[in-house]
């Protein structure tokens, strides 16, 4: 799990970013080569996050990331969905939605080219 300050990233120049992506590429390749790699993904920034909870059979959707310090990250699903509504409909079925919170966030997709 990778944590960082988005504000710092936003201040970086294009060449800084290219350099960092290069380093990530080399790192990923190295753990692929050593057969340690299973999967990875870069999340879009928290501004794209939506949080979902189900309480008393009613679903509550809110803008923004999950921000409750008394609960901890306990797992994740990587899914494919045609839009946010489809993703939320799936998130709603996660058993923990009944007592915990499900943060839904898109991955950064690299365009071919």
């Amino acid at each position, binding site marked *: 799990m990778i944590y960082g300050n988005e504000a710092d990233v936003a201040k970086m120049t294009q060449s800084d970013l290219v350099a960092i992506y290069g380093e990530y590429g080399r790192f990923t390749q190295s753990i692929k080569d050593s057969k340690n790699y299973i999967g990875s993904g870069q999340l879009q920034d928290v501004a794209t996050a939506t949080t979902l909870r189900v309480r008393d059979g009613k*679903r509550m959707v809110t*803008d*923004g990331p999950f921000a409750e310090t008394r609960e901890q990250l306990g797992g994740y699903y990587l899914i494919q969905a045609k*839009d*946010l509504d489809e993703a939320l409909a799936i998130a709603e079925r996660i058993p923990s939605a009944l007592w915990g919170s499900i943060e839904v966030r*898109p991955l950064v997709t690299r365009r*071919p*080219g």
Partner: protein
Amino acid sequence: MNLESLYREEWRRVLATTVRLTGDFDLSEEAVQDAFVAALEQWPRDGAPANPYAWLVSAARNRVVDHLRRRARFRDKQTEIAQLTALEESPIDLSEAAMVDDQLRLIFTCCHPAIALDAQVALTLRTVCGLTTEEIARGFLVPVPAMAQRLVRVKRKIRDAGLPFAVPPRDRLPERLDAVMLVVYLVFTEGYAATSGKVWIRRQFCEEAIRLGRLLCELIPRNAELRALLALMLLHDSRRVARAGPDEEIVTLEEQNRELWDQRQIAEGLPLLESALRDGAAGVYALQAAIAALHARAARVEDTDWGQIARLYDVLLQKQPSPVVELNRAAAVAMADGPSRGLELIAAIEVKGTLAGYHLLPAARADLLRRDGRWREAAEAYRQALCLVANDPERRYLNRRLAEVEGLT
């Protein structure tokens, strides 16, 4: 043809269809803006087209195509080329039915629960109502760049988080429609509450909310709660002129000159509410509209059916437990059964402490004490309210009452 009124009428429809065609909110907004600029240049010279909507959609679509072509030259091309092909090959459906769907999609996207509520309101005013960013910023008393930033952020979220441009499926429709109605209601109350700011800007918000209410009733004619919401706004708005004094001072319901009430709006609102109730509307807007209707029907304040109003507040309180509704109920009970009964209810609310710091709580107590002839206590309560009040019209009202009861002690 007056371009201003044309803009008002066509903006939403043209934008809604352009978003459907392009799937891109931001790009569409810019393109529609450009299309209107082009219309401003060409129509006075060449004459207005027979179908302004079709002309504007086609102009906006061409702008989008131009933009995507330019972008394809600079960036990785696949995405833009795919968008372009889709855009150029798909026939433009400009039928009445498609236009209705486009507008609904636009409204449901702006009022999507994954967007923060204040941003939903701002985006709806910008996108569905066609207000400028400046107008919205002035209405909310925030600097224009801050409002512009808020709108940019929300449009980014729509794009990056993949919010669908779609009418929700049937099983989701009731809850999503609740969200839409809440936004319309908030636009209205923002205009009606006169928390501060210039009155004319606020009036524009009320007018926009009513316009939105009408539009929704047109688009979803079978929904009784929507009709109740429109009735509620019309009945409240009918008192707009009467509820502000010459210096924008607040004039309470009982002191209002009822001849100033807009009979046209009342005549539209009452039958709307009746039809909504007949069709089973029983939600919070219907109850509030029913209360407003009882006021509208009373030619003089003495004719008001306070008992019935208090009973409606009871039901409203069950549906929407809120200390503010409780406070309104206490005021109605006081009118029906006398100030001392109302004061008991207010004391009970005070004990709970949920409204601590809310100026209307001591203000309501002060009004009841005044009615009861307890001048000294009333003055003290008005002073408490004055310490908490944040806006000028209400401060002026409280000051006037304070002076009045001080004169009597």
